[in-house]
């Protein structure tokens, strides 16, 4: 430990957490370089940075998952060793992870006391937790049914259980890692109300995010990380999204999309009365009708889980449906033979799936192998009835990686070795470079850093201007508003309304998203 003691601070301090000179390397990769940060007690402190900037590593050090190679941690002015998460909990630190660590088939109560049971018998802990949960629900709007099974809860409620877990362990300092990535806008607002309530009670909150709007809304201070270094800390009131974005990326970025007006052509995709009933008998699509023209972007807005995913899957040939669909005037089968993903691609329907980790990429395949995913029947990729032309795929991959600025431009690197933004560029390169009739694209910038978002948006506009039709599904209303020419809002499997994007605003769309017309 190298103590770089600059400011001789007494025991009494305003800082709940102070990190001094924290460094951490994984092999050759310097994830954290000499990071110092001070977090004022009773504030919400945001930490922003692109994917891979080292935010999560820093928090993992604070929570005892990793040990820093150098530097020291001060909790309430006391130098504290945090070799494991138990020590972190004892020091009053609670963490809410991006991916929840809950036992799915346990009740909320059981999850809350898990690992913090008082003694060998469960009953005293359970009743203590029940009382506490009641208090917290009243105080902070943290209401969750204590006897519900976690697997039956919505994502937003599961997150509340994570927060309750931390509070049950008497955390004074709460770290939240990308908490809104999985939440609907209203759930996110609710979360922020909870956080403000906790702050008012004197808790200290560290909020890790890459969404600048959240930072501006809810934090008191904000620190920016870039490539493992802490580049700036500002009082939130004295900074702006533009400045933060520049600090994150290290250069000027366009937060708004430069978009010439659309010149819509003929109707490419026409869908009438689309219906889907899922395996549980729930009606997911209740008569969707829409059309997309060449050279325009139709945005589908809506809170996640209102049928957008099913719509994409039906159009991409991954799910059967009832109804009619026509592509360039020809019937598009929605079930049975000719409705599969392979036939769709042959007809010029390209698909950037919502979940690139699960669907869009085989993470352990190399980049070039992923470039053939879905196009493995393509004549140019094959050399004979059985053999694939690996050399041709490799050459094609190199060209496409170059064109889409995928970094590193190494076709032999496994997909999981790329950052989120570069993984998405790989998928986009695969689906867009063939100039499809229509591109179905779901959540194009989810988990993607700002620099890459800008690039991806430009590419989508470019494809539109080349005359492709684009159907864009996103839960980010800002993204829908920025990219779309027309916007359809989905709620509960129906289209609640359609608007020209230049004649509407977030408020109007928000009402439609909530099912109000």
């Amino acid at each position, binding site marked *: 430990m190298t103590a770089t003691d600059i400011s001789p601070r007494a025991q009494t301090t305003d800082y709940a957490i102070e990190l001094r000179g924290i460094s951490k390397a*994984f092999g*050759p990769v310097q994830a954290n370089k000499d990071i110092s940060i001070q977090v004022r007690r009773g504030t919400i402190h945001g930490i922003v940075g692109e994917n891979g900037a080292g935010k999560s590593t820093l928090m993992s050090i604070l929570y005892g998952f990793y040990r820093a190679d150098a530097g020291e941690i001060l909790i309430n002015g006391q130098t504290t060793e945090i070799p494991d998460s138990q020590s972190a909990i004892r020091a009053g630190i609670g963490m809410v992870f991006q991916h929840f660590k809950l036992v799915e088939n346990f009740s909320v109560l059981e999850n809350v006391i898990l690992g913090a049971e008082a003694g060998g018998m469960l009953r005293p802990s359970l009743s203590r937790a029940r009382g506490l949960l009641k208090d917290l629900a009243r105080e902070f709007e943290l209401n969750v049914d204590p006897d519900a099974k976690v697997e039956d809860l919505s994502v937003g409620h599961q997150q509340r259980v994570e927060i309750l877990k931390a509070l049950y362990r008497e955390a004074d300092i709460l770290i939240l890692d990308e908490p809104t990535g999985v939440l609907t806008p209203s759930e996110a607002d609710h979360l922020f109300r909870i956080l403000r309530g906790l702050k008012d009670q004197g808790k200290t909150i560290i909020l890790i995010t890459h969404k600048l709007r959240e930072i501006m809304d809810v934090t008191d201070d904000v620190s920016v990380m870039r490539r493992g270094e802490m580049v700036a800390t500002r009082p939130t009131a004295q900074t702006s999204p533009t400045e933060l974005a520049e600090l994150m990326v290290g250069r000027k970025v366009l937060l708004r999309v430069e978009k010439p007006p659309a010149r819509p052509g003929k109707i490419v995709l026409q869908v009438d009365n689309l219906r889907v009933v899922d395996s549980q008998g729930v009606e997911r699509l209740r008569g969707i009708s829409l059309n997309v023209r060449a050279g325009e972007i139709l945005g589908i807005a809506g809170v996640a889980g209102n049928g957008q995913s099913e719509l994409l899957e039906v159009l*991409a040939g*991954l799910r059967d449906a009832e109804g009619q669909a026509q592509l360039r005037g020809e019937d598009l089968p929605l079930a049975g033979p000719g409705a599969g993903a392979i036939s769709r691609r042959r007809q010029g329907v390209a698909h950037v799936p919502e979940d690139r980790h699960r669907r869009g990429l085989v993470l352990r*395949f190399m980049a070039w192998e992923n470039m053939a995913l879905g196009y*493995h029947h393509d004549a140019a990729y094959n050399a004979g009835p059985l*053999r694939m032309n*690996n050399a041709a795929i490799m050459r094609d991959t190199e060209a496409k990686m170059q064109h889409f600025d995928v970094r590193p431009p190494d076709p032999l690197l496994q997909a999981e070795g790329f950052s989120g933004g570069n993984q998405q560029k790989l998928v986009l390169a695969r689906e867009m470079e063939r100039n499809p009739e229509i591109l179905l694209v779901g959540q194009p910038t989810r988990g993607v850093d700002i620099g890459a978002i800008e690039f991806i948006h430009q590419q989508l506009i470019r494809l539109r201007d080349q005359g492709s039709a684009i159907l864009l599904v996103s839960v980010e209303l800002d993204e829908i508003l920025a990219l779309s020419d027309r916007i359809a809002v989905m709620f509960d499997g129906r289209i609640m309304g359609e608007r020209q994007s230049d004649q509407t605003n977030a408020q109007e769309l928000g009402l439609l998203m909530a099912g109000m017309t």
Partner: protein
Amino acid sequence: MSAKGRIPDWADVTLVPLVSVALAFMISAILIWAIGESPWEAVKLMVEGAFGSSYGWGYTLYYATNFMFTGLAVSVAFQARLFNIGGEGQALVGGLGVALVCLYIPWPHWTLALVGAMLGGAVFGALWALIPGWLQAKRGSHIVITTIMFNFIAASLLGYMLVNVLRPQGTQDPSSPRFPPETALPSLHEILALVGIPFSRVPPVNISLLIAVAMCFVVWYLLWRTRLGYQIRAFGESEPAAEYAGISPARITIYAMLISGALAGLMAVNSVMGEQQRLVLNAVEGAGFIGIAVALMGRNHPFGVFLAAILFGFLYQGGAELALWTGIPRELIVVIQALVILFTGALDNMVRIPIARLFAQARARGR
């Protein structure tokens, strides 16, 4: 930026298993020492018994041939994330196919008989694997359960066929008649004699060895050069991604199981046609199960399977010698084999993570 370092492919397939095996041998040595025998003598005896003479080599390679076929069978299925435990049964039924082809078709020459027997073994093995594969693909019956059950059914089927159909009249032995001499495969002794290399004529190693080695290459080619292999691997790595790409899970499940069963069935060419020259009750002798260990150790890669098969051939042959010449009980040989499986399979990460760390450090210094 993950905490786990990467290991170069060559180290993944060779270094990690070698260290695991070394650890297994160390613990075996302690065991041998604990029962009052000399570990050093035991190792010497095993190595000499397996590699010290062309006689030993012959047996080692004979066993290795069996393990290559069954190891490849498990590997192909596992590339599609299907755990085919049924290699034993598929090899048994493959043996039935080989026997029927050899007994009921009058072959003029061994070359033709070999082709026919390969077809018979592969088709029978494939069909035996098809049923669990189909049940998995269409009905969702778990392949592990069904293939295990099919091992028992295969054993009963074989017992019935041998006792009631194939057994010559007047004999008590539940086995088929001897195959006609035209179906006898050339032994390694005969093959090597053509190029003037002396080799013991005793061990049963035969031309099937070359077929097994060729199959290692064929399976590699299938998996990494053909479209079917691409689809099998994509399906194995991620079913949602495969679906997205329009790869039919049901079809790939069935294809992978057919290929897997065919490879297991081919093993009978070595044991039934090459060695026994007739079909006996326990023709497979557990090689189907050893194949699981071989595939595990060989990382489901055909070249890894090749090396692992030879290692297990060595364990088999060396172990037999050990039981013959020392007071070490045969059961201990099984323990040693189990230790090898334990270390290479179950405790894989115990070796892998430190090696990954060493590589990461070496890279860091290299920069």
